[in-house]
């Protein structure tokens, strides 16, 4: 690319030569502005010829200036070509980023859709489980109601209460008769099916006889029921036996039938936590 080897002394020619050497040594200018650089080079060759031919100072100055302008044009065209390449590259990059953005958006939508479906399925399963639990509760309540009906227990403020009448005990004795044992068997079945429930066996008498005698008799009758239950396999700590004597009549002691009603054993069934309200 270096044109001419002769050392020049004209400062204008020297300046044009220096500028051309500097710019043409840039490989970017050589490759991106080849035509413009060739035109500058032609101009420089002409300048050298004019110098060699002893052209006037003014002519050399004009030709030097033309060479410099052409060299600068070549440099600007190279700059322009680089900028255009950067634009093309950036356009591509922008397309890539936009594609990435759309892909991400689609991913997020898919993820949200999957999450929503999982949530819906979970809610469905939970609803089904809740339904099953409610169904079980209902069945349990139904079973309990049936069992209590079988026991002929009646609801009271203190819970379900079952009454064993006087006829189930021997007169003035504490032994449970055979008919009474049928109720004991039912009670055993109930306690086995409902292990969370306990019972309280409460003995009562009429007002005939001394208080002490009646208290004693009611205790012995309650104990007899407790013993029978233990004998049938119910744990002793689930049964509380108490004698109340003549303290809590349910009918008038003035008549024989009233007295008979008052002679009884009441069995109070606990709540599901095993506790029974005090009398």
């Amino acid at each position: 690319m270096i044109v001419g080897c002769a050392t020049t002394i004209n400062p204008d020619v020297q300046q044009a030569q220096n500028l051309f050497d500097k710019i043409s040594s840039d490989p970017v200018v050589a490759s991106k502005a080849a035509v413009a650089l060739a035109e500058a080079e032609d101009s420089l060759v002409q300048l050298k010829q004019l110098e060699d031919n002893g052209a006037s100072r003014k002519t050399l100055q004009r030709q030097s200036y033309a060479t410099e302008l052409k060299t600068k044009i070549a440099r600007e065209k190279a700059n322009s070509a680089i900028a255009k390449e950067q634009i093309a590259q950036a356009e591509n990059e922008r397309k890539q980023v936009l594609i990435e953005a759309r892909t991400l958006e689609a991913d997020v939508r898919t993820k949200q859709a999957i999450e929503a479906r999982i949530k819906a399925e979970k809610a469905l399963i939970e609803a089904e489980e809740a339904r099953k639990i409610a169904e079980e509760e209902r069945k349990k309540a139904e079973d309990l109601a049936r069992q209590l009906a079988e026991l002929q227990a009646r609801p009271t403020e203190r819970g379900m209460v079952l009454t064993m009448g006087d006829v189930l005990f021997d007169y003035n004795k504490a032994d449970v008769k055979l008919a009474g044992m049928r109720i004991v068997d039912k009670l055993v079945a109930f306690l086995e099916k409902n292990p969370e429930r306990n019972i309280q066996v409460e003995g009562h008498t009429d007002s005939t006889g001394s208080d002490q005698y009646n208290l004693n008799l009611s205790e012995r009758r309650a104990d007899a029921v407790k013993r029978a239950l233990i004998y049938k396999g119910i744990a002793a700590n689930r049964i509380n036996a108490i004698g109340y004597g003549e303290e809590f009549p349910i009918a008038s002691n003035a008549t024989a039938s009233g007295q008979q009603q008052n002679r009884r054993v009441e069995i109070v069934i606990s709540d599901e936590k095993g506790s029974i309200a005090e009398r």
Partner: protein
Amino acid sequence: MEPPHEEISRSAYTIKAAEEDGARELAPLELRQAKKTLEKARLALKNEDYEEALNYAKTAELEAQLAQAITESASNNVAAQAIKDSIRSLKRELDRYQIKTQ
């Protein structure tokens, strides 16, 4: 020697084209120089110094071409910068979105 009408109108045309490309903003010094040289060419033509007029016309043409080349490369640089900026802000937004949705 013929009067260099053709060369003078060619440089006048190139100057006009450079102005239309935006040389007044992007290459004001080069444009001004080309216009001054063209005036000298016209003055020489009027004085019937046709050789001087031709030389000035040719120089004015090259100066106008340089003004054009500078204008083009400057506006290309501005455009390239604008796209790069838009990509940068797009990427920033994308990053924010990614962090938000992770």
